[in-house]
């Protein structure tokens, strides 16, 4: 029991460090790529090529005054960013970043929590993140914040439906809620050469899931909650300093988790096609698979960034129309068609 807690704490610290460093790199990449797309230079003063810009920003936020408006409800105003970041950081617990690995004479799985309800855990913790945003909007006692928080929660719950429904197709194929077994199922080959990745078996589910993931992470073209021209900053209008920084951090951590979930469910997770036939030692193979996982996540994150800077924003009614009138029927149809094919 005590040992268990110690090991999990160590794993948690490692994962948290990796996520935080990835967020810093991601913010840097986002700013550089957006600058490149918009024919600007982007951050280039702090450190070589502006690499330390994100770290400088964190220090700046840390030294800012923490302003809580006198009309705001302080306990909830403080609690909201903590809920957001807590949910964002702990979602990663059930994602397998690699196959089993031999370390110090013991074989262990490269995931933090090996529970039999992996996907349900991800869905439920993601939904807790909605509370952070809603409470932030409500507790600020500001009209912009309230509207931003309301819009955001309506958007998140709408797209959660199609997200949950598009996972069902994957579950029907693999017959388990365990993420490591879902990945294991994808390591086979169709016809001896095509990797058995769910993107090939469930293309419609893949598309609906990716669109829902964009909406769930508040990324453009779905970033209505903080539409600057109408709502100033949306739900975090009244936040300053690191409390604002925590929302920012949660957004990017959510992006990384979303990319990791997409990779796990649809792109074969840590599976590196044909690598198991190369005759490498078990340890090298495990390392290669972890690298493959990271590479896939990076590609999806780059896709997220490039999409943000190339597409315009939806109107709110269009956003809700897509969620309820296009994605939902599409996801239900996908479940029925998958069932029909599997039965036949």
């Amino acid at each position, binding site marked *: 029991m005590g040992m268990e*807690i110690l090991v*999990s*704490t160590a*794993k948690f*610290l490692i994962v*948290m460090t990796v996520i935080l460093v990835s967020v810093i790199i991601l913010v840097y990449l986002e700013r550089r790529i957006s600058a490149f797309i918009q024919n600007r230079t982007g951050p280039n003063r702090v450190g070589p090529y502006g690499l330390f810009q994100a770290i400088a920003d964190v220090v700046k936020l*840390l*030294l*800012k*005054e923490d*302003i809580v*408006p*006198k*009309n*705001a409800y302080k306990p909830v105003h403080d609690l909201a960013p*903590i809920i957001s*970041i*807590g949910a*964002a*950081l*702990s979602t990663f*617990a*059930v994602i397998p970043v690699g196959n089993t690995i031999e370390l110090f004479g013991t074989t262990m799985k490269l995931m*933090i*929590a090996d*529970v039999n309800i992996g996907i*349900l855990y991800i869905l439920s913790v993601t939904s807790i993140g909605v509370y952070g945003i809603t409470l932030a909007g409500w507790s600020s006692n*500001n*009209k*912009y*914040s*309230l509207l931003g928080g*309301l819009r955001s929660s*309506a958007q998140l*719950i*709408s797209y*959660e439906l199609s997200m949950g*429904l598009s996972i069902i*197709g994957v*579950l029907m194929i693999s*017959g*388990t809620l365990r993420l490591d077994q879902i990945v294991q199922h994808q390591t086979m080959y169709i016809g001896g050469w095509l990797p058995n990745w769910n993107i090939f078996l469930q293309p419609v589910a893949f598309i609906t899931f990716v669109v829902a993931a964009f909406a769930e992470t508040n990324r453009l073209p779905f970033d209505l909650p903080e539409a600057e021209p109408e709502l*100033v900053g949306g739900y975090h*209008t*009244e936040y300053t*300093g*690191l409390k604002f*920084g*925590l929302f920012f951090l949660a957004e990017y951590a959510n992006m990384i988790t979303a990319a990791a979930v997409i990779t796990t469910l649809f792109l074969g997770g840590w599976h590196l096609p044909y690598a198991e036939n190369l005759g490498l030692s078990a340890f090298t193979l495990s390392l290669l698979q972890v690298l493959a996982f990271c590479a896939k996540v990076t590609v999806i994150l780059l896709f997220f960034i490039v999409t943000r800077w190339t597409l315009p924003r939806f109107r709110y*009614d269009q956003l*809700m129309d897509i969620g*309820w009138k296009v994605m*939902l*029927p599409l996801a*239900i149809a996908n*479940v*029925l068609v998958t*069932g*029909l094919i*599997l039965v036949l």
Partner: protein
Amino acid sequence: MLEGYIPIFVMLAGGAAFGIVMVKLNELFGPKHPTEEKYTTYESGMEPVKSARERFSIKFYMVAVLFILFDIEVVFLYPWAVTFKGLGVNGFITMAVFIFILLVGYYYVWRKGALEWD
């Protein structure tokens, strides 16, 4: 059986602790220069008009109610999907009927205009 969940509790506690530490650090290092104007609600530089504790559009309430309805259906689908291969044709037809009933409700909601935003 609960032992597998220890890492999850550690993870949740760690995530929350990280947030609390960050908020506290900010309170510790940030300056404190309170002025009357700084602590008023931001409203594009104007004097705030009334409070934000006002009534808001019923649409958001509708979305929340519909979400609960459909989300419960999704929850029902999960155990079915996991055991799908063992249930065979019978299981598929049963769930197809369930989804059909739900689609009738979906059609009704659509025709009633609950999904319209204007």
